[in-house]
């Protein structure tokens, strides 16, 4: 995949994870004990041999810059190509208003022009998956597609699946993998309208990964921006449906799109299935993240931990079930944690009981306190809160 450049698009972010994204973009939300959301798609690109990767941010990008730094931990600190970050409005004056993804691309057109790769893959950042980009490229070439859009089909009936197929870019797939029609389902569509569209023909959802020739992307950017259009999908894809060969590639492995607190909570707990764990972290490649120094987990005398993921440097003397513990969490004797996600450097004191909660970084729950949410409505506690 030396001939493909990667672009990660953070422009679509709309603070869907309120409460844990106050100080960070969605892409920098901690996930799975030691990662940030962006690690999954970024590592997938690296594992596919993509060596030129850029990230187009929208706002609040400091957390992301701190996380990625020079790209060294993803092996992207390179003399040629490597990792690039483009922030809005810092090129000329900082008075410019953010207009859309295509505007960001247009502002950095020289970078895209100069890049030596022939193909480009564009991806959203909020995808939890270990994605095989090589297969998409093979599909793209085999189908002689102008644009390939990766989609998922509904295959289970879980509540969370329902949500997933109730929004976003929905595809109507025609013959020969060609997309016959597509529509962006907005949040304010009525449920009955959504159902109708889905049942009719728009029953495949784009996951937010697109592949095309770099030259075509340049054409789309120039043509759209010249007319004052700034949306890649609506202005670049849908308006050109008639003239371009746009194909759909079906992704079949594990993939979760994190776009709400509920999906964050649910998909975090997905990882407690050992098959998902194995698939997500090892297949086809490893997921990289910013490495941190820290000793192993210490299980004390009274520890009882079941069906849980635990990151390094935790010290556990309590009971933990169906939960995810990030780095340096302390669980004292007598504490009980169930169906919860506990972020970095949080301390759970003696005899605390937690169920269906999400604690952000550096929270402290003092002796004997109890917090309980519901699976579809977890209690979220903000960074550095003391309860």
């Amino acid at each position, binding site marked *: 995949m030396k001939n493909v450049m990667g672009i990660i698009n953070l422009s679509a972010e709309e603070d869907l994870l309120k409460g844990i994204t106050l100080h960070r973009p969605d892409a920098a939300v901690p996930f799975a004990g030691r990662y940030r959301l962006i690690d999954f798609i970024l590592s997938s690109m690296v594992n596919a041999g993509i060596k030129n990767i850029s990230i187009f941010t929208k706002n609040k990008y400091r957390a992301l810059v701190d996380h990625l730094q020079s790209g060294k931990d993803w092996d992207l600190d390179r003399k040629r190509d490597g990792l690039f970050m483009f922030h809005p409005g810092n090129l000329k004056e900082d008075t410019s208003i953010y207009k859309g993804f295509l505007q960001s691309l247009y502002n950095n057109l020289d970078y895209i022009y100069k890049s030596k790769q022939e193909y480009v893959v564009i991806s959203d950042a909020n995808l939890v998956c270990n994605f095989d980009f090589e297969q998409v490229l093979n599909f793209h070439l085999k189908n002689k597609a102008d644009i390939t859009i990766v989609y998922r089909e509904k295959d289970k009936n879980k509540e969370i699946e329902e949500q997933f197929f109730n929004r976003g870019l929905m595809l109507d797939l025609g013959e020969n993998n060609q997309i016959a029609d597509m529509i962006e389902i907005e949040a304010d569509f009525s449920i009955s309208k959504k159902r109708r569209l889905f049942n009719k023909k728009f029953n495949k959802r784009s996951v937010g990964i697109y592949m095309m020739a770099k030259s075509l992307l340049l054409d789309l950017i120039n043509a759209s921006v010249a007319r004052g259009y700034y949306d890649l999908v609506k202005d670049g894809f849908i308006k050109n449906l008639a003239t371009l060969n746009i194909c759909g590639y079906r992704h079949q492995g594990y993939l979760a799109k994190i776009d709400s607190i509920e999906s964050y909570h649910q998909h975090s707990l997905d990882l407690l299935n*050992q098959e998902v764990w194995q698939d997500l972290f090892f297949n086809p490649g490893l997921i990289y993240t910013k490495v941190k120094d820290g000793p192993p987990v210490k299980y004390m005398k009274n520890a009882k931990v079941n069906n849980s993921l635990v990151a390094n440097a935790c010290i556990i003397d309590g009971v933990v079930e169906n939960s995810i513990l990030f780095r340096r969490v302390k669980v004292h004797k007598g504490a009980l944690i169930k169906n919860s996600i506990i972020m970095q450097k949080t301390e759970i004191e003696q005899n605390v009981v937690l169920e269906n909660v999400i604690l952000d970084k550096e929270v402290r729950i003092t002796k004997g306190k109890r917090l309980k949410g519901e699976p579809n409505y977890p209690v979220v506690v903000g960074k550095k809160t003391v309860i």
Partner: protein
Amino acid sequence: MKRGDDLRKKDCVAMILAGGQGSRLGVLTQKLAKPAVPFGGKYRIIDFTLSNCYNSGLDTVGVLTQYQPLALNTYIGIGGSWDMDRKNGGVALLPPYMRKEGGEWYKGTANAILQNMDFIDSYQPNYVLILSGDHIYKMDYSLMLDYHKEKKAEATIAVIEVPWAEASRFGILNTNENGKVLEFEEKPAKPKSNLASMGVYIFSWEVLKEYLQQDEQDPTSSNDFGKDINPKMLKQKQRMYAYPFEGYWKDVGTIQSLWEANMDLLDEYPQLDLYDTNWQIYSVNPNQPPQYLSATAKVCRSLVNEGCVIHGSVTRSVLFPGVYVGTGTTIKDAIIMPNVKIGSDVVIKKAIICEGVTIADGCQVSCQEAGCQQCYSEAGITVLGKSITGTDISCHQKVVRRSSKEFEGFKGIGFNTGEILT
């Protein structure tokens, strides 16, 4: 141009002796230098010395290698993990090498330093700190250097109080009330003091250089600091002081002491605290997902690292990254090194399982026969250096009998068979 030119000058250069074979660690050091042996669920032994250097503010460190250095070289690199990839100074790996006159291997600890005099001289140091790469401890060398300067010593030797009963197993220093060294005794039958040398020395470089060169001329010398250099300096009335160190310190040169040092970490409040962020032990960090403990797991009084998957019961044990433990398996008092795959219904007791070993379902690793030479180390610790995958399991393979349960062959979920080590 005062400072521009002086940039390379360093007050003190540290030299870590990391070339020893560590033959008493048997199979553990067959393809690995002793300082590279895994320790504490995450580290390699040399991490402690390197982290001590960094935490003490020393940024110029030579690591003397000789025996099986590849893993150590790859591990240390240019020292980035210990923040020592500095423009001026940093970590240098120093293997023996050929000169115009030919080359020779390091004959002893003192000879190793002698052969690298050019390296040390390039920093024009006032002092040289000599360290071993195979001790587990946390020590602020800058305090010892202050002590050395304050005493205007030519040589300072770090000492630790050991129990009187054990003193005869150590090199003992007899000092006056000011800490001045009066006498050395190597493993004295009747020790006069319980101050044991820790193998940590500070020398004034100009003085040491003379002694090294002198010592090289002496054909009877074993070119060793403890046996030759230090006694000679004392004899010739050089100012030599003992620096008293308090805290945890352990030489992990034997299977037993290595095992004990690992177990020490499992105390409720261990003397050596790995979780203290003020004196952190740094290491190369593996890239593994968080550990997964299944519904059937039972883990307590243990250290477990990332990438482990545990279905069985683990008590008072240390698990390195990427270990798999099947259902129904019981592990107790054991050290399980990286990427070991353990099947179901296995029993492991008081054992060290080497990196990458695979243990098939139903095996039992803990020799019942106390006199069995193959399985028992001195301390009754089984060291397993080879996978058990076949049915022909015998004591001869340093492995111990299967349980009565039918042998099924290990099939981990998606794990390949580990590499065979012995």
